[in-house]
Structure formats: structure tokens, C-alpha cells
């Protein structure tokens, strides 16, 4: 017996702004964002499922577009331009509006029951999540009399951060008739990216305190400074296993799971601090042996073990 199924979904919906991205700094003032608008989301996806006696498989593709998104961030910035030499630092609220994002990708999975005891699994996902336009950025702050408009933030083609955009897994499971079993998976993860700072992608990056370009601004160096960090690929190996016994009508058993067996150190995410807001401050900080305001990273856990013994009655 075998069968295949094709599925198709399409969606278009809007998301009204919520409290968090309607006010630039609701704790201090009542300033509503300039050009506040609803976010629009369009999505299409196709899928194909296949099922036979011992094979289950699924293949799908998706494409999502988000338009007019708004993001607000709070941070302390060093190296603000155009405000005079005595106002280069401030605690600011960054309003990034009109953001277009694009998510597209393929996913597939297959599970094969080779014998009654052995099962093989494989899965892969390939995605590409990018900013799809150059949104507008302005700053507000207690330290400014008015908003500070830095115009276009050149984000197009930068990757959206949030976990690996490519992943693959191969797994194996053995289930013995004698009430013991074990399984292992090997996971390959790649294309995870650091969350970028939109402020350094605006004119502020290369302008000096008087609004004119910074001297000795070098485009090649700038391109290096503004290149998005891609995290290293990593492989995680996990295993689980267990056994149970029937003793006097009760089940006694144990269960063990091992995660990240080879104790791989890996970055799962992180973000560029916006503190170094221009070419000069960013370059200076990067040239340090250990930057003071370098990116913040999150790391995955190292090797971890879990074991339990149970009695079921």
C-alpha cells in the first residue's frame, strides 16, 4: 500500500501594531511612532507527503514575505553624527520602520522502518531568511530636542538572525524485542548569523559630528566591519537508550539520554552591540585585543547527561 498527497496553502494577513512598537519610549513620553502602520504578511507553501508500509516521507517548500514591520530598540550609542562634537553619545530609542523580510526554504524528512527492530530517520531543512529592503531609521532620546533622522538603513540581503538556517539530521533507532532499545542522531547545523545593528548601516556610520564624512573612511575596511558574522557550522551527536523488566506485574526500567556527546562548543545566536555607532568607534574597538563593546553571543550547552530509573505500576 502506498499513497502520495500534495498540499498547498496561501495566506495574506495584516498584523496591527501592538503597544511595544507603537510608542518610541512609553515609559517616558507619549510619542507615537512616525508613520505607524500595520505589518503585512504573505505566505505560500507546498507540500508533498508520501506513505508506504515502511517508508514515510515529506517534502515541503515555503515562501513568506513580511512588509512594513517595525522594530524598536533601546541602547547607549557612542559616535552619533551631525549633532556637534559635544553630543556624540546618548541613550537612544531606535525606530526602524518599513522593514521587509523574506523567508524561503525547503524542508524534507524521511523515516524508514527497515526491520521490525531497526528504524532509520533523515531530515533536512534549507532556508534563507533575509531583509528584503532598506528600511528607514530614526532615533529619539531625552538628550535630543527633536528626533534624529538618519534616513536609510542599508539592510537588504543581510540575514535575519534566529538560529541556523540550514540543518540536517540522520538518525537510527534499534528496538529489541527483549525490552531494550537505543537510538542515536547526528545533527549538522549551519548558516546561523549574528543579529546586526541597523544604526551602523545608516549614514551615521560614516558621518562625523558635523554631518560630513569621517576622514580616512576606507570602504574596504568599512565592508569588513559591516560584514555580518556567520557562526561556525557544528555537529551535535545525541543518543538515547533504555531497558525495562517486568517484575511481579510491575515495570522496572531505566532511561539514559546523552546530548552533545562530543562536548562541542557552539554559538546559537547573538547580536552586535550598537554602542559603537560609527566607523571610527567601531574600528577602534575591533582593533582591541578584546573589544569592549563587541558582539554578545549565546552558546549552546556542552555535553549533558540524563538518566532515570522508574517503576511503573
Amino acid at each position: 500500500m502506498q499513497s502520495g498527497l500534495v498540499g498547498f496553502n496561501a495566506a495574506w494577513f495584516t498584523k496591527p501594531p501592538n503597544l511595544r512598537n507603537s510608542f518610541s519610549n512609553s515609559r517616558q513620553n507619549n510619542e507615537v511612532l512616525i508613520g505607524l502602520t500595520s505589518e503585512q504578511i504573505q505566505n505560500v507553501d507546498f507540500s508533498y507527503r508520501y506513505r508506504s508500509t515502511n517508508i514515510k516521507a515529506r517534502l515541503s517548500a515555503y515562501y513568506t514575505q513580511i512588509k512594513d514591520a517595525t522594530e524598536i530598540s533601546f541602547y547607549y550609542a557612542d559616535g552619533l553624527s551631525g549633532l556637534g562634537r559635544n553630543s556624540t553619545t546618548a541613550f537612544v530609542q531606535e525606530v526602524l520602520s518599513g522593514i521587509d523580510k523574506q523567508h524561503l526554504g525547503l524542508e524534507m524528512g524521511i523515516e524508514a522502518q527497515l526491520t521490525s527492530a531497526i528504524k532509520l530517520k533523515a531530515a533536512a531543512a534549507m532556508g534563507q531568511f533575509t531583509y528584503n529592503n532598506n528600511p528607514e531609521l530614526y532615533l529619539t532620546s531625552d538628550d535630543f530636542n527633536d528626533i534624529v533622522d538618519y534616513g536609510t538603513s542599508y539592510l537588504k540581503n543581510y540575514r535575519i538572525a534566529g538560529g541556523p538556517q540550514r540543518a540536517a539530521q540522520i538518525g537510527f533507532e534499534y528496538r529489541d524485542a527483549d525490552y531494550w532499545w537505543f537510538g542515536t542522531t547526528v545533527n549538522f547545523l549551519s548558516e546561523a548569523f549574528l543579529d546586526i545593528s541597523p544604526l551602523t548601516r545608516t549614514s551615521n556610520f560614516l558621518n562625523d559630528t558635523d554631518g560630513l564624512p569621517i576622514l580616512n573612511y576606507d570602504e574596504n575596511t568599512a565592508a569588513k566591519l559591516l560584514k555580518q558574522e556567520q557562526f561556525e557550522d557544528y555537529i551535535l551527536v545525541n543518543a538515547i537508550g533504555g531497558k525495562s523488566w517486568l517484575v511481579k506485574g510491575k515495570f522496572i526500567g531505566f532511561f539514559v539520554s546523552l546530548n552533545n556527546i562530543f562536548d562541542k562548543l557552539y554559538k546559537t545566536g547573538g547580536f552586535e552591540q550598537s554602542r559603537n555607532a560609527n566607523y571610527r568607534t567601531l574600528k577602534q574597538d575591533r582593533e582591541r585585543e578584546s573589544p569592549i563593546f563587541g558582539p554578545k553571543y549565546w552558546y549552546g550547552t556542552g555535553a549533558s547527561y540524563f538518566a532515570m530509573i522508574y517503576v511503573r505500576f
Partner: protein
Amino acid sequence: MFDFKTLGMRNFNVVMTIILVATSCVKTDDFQLPESETEEINIEGDLTGISAVKSNFDPESEVIYVFSETNTVMEAYVVSSDEGGNFYKELVLQDKPENPTAGILLLVDDNSLFETYNFGRKIYVKLDGLALWSNNGVHQLGVQNRGDVVAIPPSRIDDHITRTMETAEIIPLKIEISEFTEIHENLFIQVDNVQFNRNLLREQHHYTFAGEVTDEYDGERQLESCSTGASAMLSTSTFSGFKSLYLPENSGSVKGILTRNFYDNYFVIAVNSPDDFSFDGDRCDPEFLKCESNNMTGGSAFFEENFSNIASLSALENNGWTNINVNGGKTFEPGTFDGNRYVRVSAFNTDEAPLEAWLVSPPVDLDSVSEARLSFEIMSSYDNATILSVLITEEFTGDVLTTNWTQIEAVIPIGPTNQYGRGFVKSEIDISCLKGDIHFAFRYLGAAPDKSTTYDIDNIRISGN
């Protein structure tokens, strides 16, 4: 959802292919760099130039002139750079990038001006609130603080100085040392065909720009023109980053700012960086007497003068010395210190410019002498230029100006600028190739008030076998 058919699968493939082709893979360096988006700035106020600004200062009364309610803006180009540390909290400004006619010094309280106001940058200076005076010999703009004009404080720099987008190529004004005048002050000049005085470049002591123990605030080094013989000082701050570099040895051109020394006695050149020297020509030192005897020791002295019995000008002449000033002014004079007698010459406290004085030795017969050598000791005090030379001849006519002299390569020491010298320096010269009655002479070429080094000469001796 519908049941799988071959047709369905094919459609699926087609749609997927379209999606993938339409959005090809993005690489991490597929981004665009931000752009400046700056528009040209607008200047409010009436434009004026540096020479018009300078004319507000009255050199007679020397009263500080304060600009107020003039609504004027001075247009200028930056020609100094504090990157090398030779300029500190100041910008030298001139009126045009090429063939400038006026320059001025703007005092700004910021120690990293080159990062904003770079060499050649056209700027506008809003004058209202600024003050003008003359200090250390040059016109300076700043803000008034009681009886002084001081640097514009950091909080007011942006109010007074506005950058434009233009960074001009500054063409230095080509000029000879002998042509330096007040109107060239604070201009970016180029002097061609010059070299450092050879006494700064001796093997036993090769001078640096400003890294000698005797250098205070500024190191001043004598530059000589190969074409006119005129000399001027190169002034380098002891706070500059290149103060410890050796002076370049060859000759060539130097670009820098013409200004005055701290006490406003004479012109000095200050460079932005050691790259402003292009010394790739040969030196133009005079032809020195060159004899080739290898024996520089032993023998007996048959001419000796330590001036111990010479206490007056007449005693000097009675001993056979010719002591004259070609213009009839001050000559070499006997002197004494701590029981030691010597002869001294100096243009200090005279009004003579030039002061050309000669001290010619009595005749010394070398016919019966082989391997003759001449030695003497010189001390330099209150040194502001190397202006002594030693010459020799086989045919003295009695008139120093008509005699055919040959220079000898004496070590003329470079003494402290503001005190007596620390000791005599001995020169020993091979004169074995000369015959007959020879005369040697010390020639002093000073010019009050700025070339007035004091030289003391002692222990003259000719020895041989």
C-alpha cells in the same frame, strides 16, 4: 488536499523551481555600504579673507582686537597637521590653496585636529566672539581671556569652525630663505636646494630633529641654501612624534610652515611630518682642503698660541695676528675665564647685519716640516646658528677679501641656545700638502640679532716632524 497524481507532482516541481530561481542564494557580503547623504552646507554671514582679518590688529598699540556683531565669516584652508605632533592645539590657515597671500594661526583647544580639519580642508571661521592679537611673532585668532588670547574651548569649536566638503590640493609657495618676510608668515612654503649644516651630521654626533638632551620645547636645526648660502632654522617640537629621527643628510627641498621662533627673533620652518623633506640631491658643502698623510700623532709643535699672554687687542696684533671686520665694526677680542685666556667673537648686542670678522694667523713656514697638522679648540655659547668657518691659504695677500682661501673641515660645535658652552671641542686637520708661508683664518659671519652665536677659540697648534 487531493490525491497524488503524476500531473500533481510535475506541477509541484515547476513551482519549486520558479521560487528557487526567483530568489537566488544570498551571500554574506551581498550588502550595500551606507551612504553619507550629506548635502553642501550653507554659510550665513558675509565672507571675508585672512588679510582683511589681520588688518584689524594694530601693531603699534598691540591691543587685542575682539570681533563682535560683524556677522562675518573668514574663508580659509588648513595647512598644518597635528598628526605628527609638531603642532599642538592650533591650526595654521592660509587664504588660498595656491599662491597664498596671507596666513593666520587659529588656536583651538583640541589635540586631535587632523581627524576633522585635515591638511587642505577648506573651512569657514565665524569671527564674532573671537579675538586677534600678535604673539610669538605671528597673528593669532582665539578667544580673549583677560590680557591673553587663548584657544577656542571645546564647547565652542563647532560654533566657530565649519568644515566644507572641499579638501584642496595645497601647492606650496616656492621661496628662497633670503626672501622670507613677514607676509609669508603662516603660509605653506617650499624651499628648494637646501641642506642641514654639516656640523649637525657628524659621525660622532648625528643630530635628530628635536631629540637631543639640550632641546627644550623646540629643537632648532640650521638649514642652508645651496644656491644663496643663506641659512634658516627648522623648528621641531620636542613633543612631536618624529623628534628622535635623524636629520636627513642629503640636500633637496623642504615643505613646511614659515613662522617665527618663540621669542620672535627670527624665521623658522615647521614641518607637518618628516615626509615633507625630499632630500635626494647631493650635498653642496664647500671644497675642503684634503691632504693625504696618515700620521696624525707625535712630532713637535713649532707654532703654538694659547693666548695666555694676550690681554688686549694690541697684544694680539703685536703677536702677528690680523684681526679685522670687513665693515669696520666689532672684531675678535681677547677674553678670560677662570684664569684661561682665549679669543672671542660674537654679534650679540651689536647692530651689525652682516657682521663679517676675520682673525688671520701670523705666517707659519711649513717648508722644513713634514706631516704638518693644525689643531685648535672652539667653544660655542648662546648658539643660534653655525656661522664660523676656518680657512687656510699659501698665498695671503694681506687683504682677506682678495686672498684665495681654502676651507678646512673644522668641527664647529653646536652649543646651548641660552647659556655658556660646556667646553671646548678640538679639531685636528692634516695640512701636510701645504708648503711655504701659510696663514689660516677664522671667519665669523653673523647678523644681529638672530645670528649671534658666541665663539671662543683657544689652544691653536701646528705640529709635525
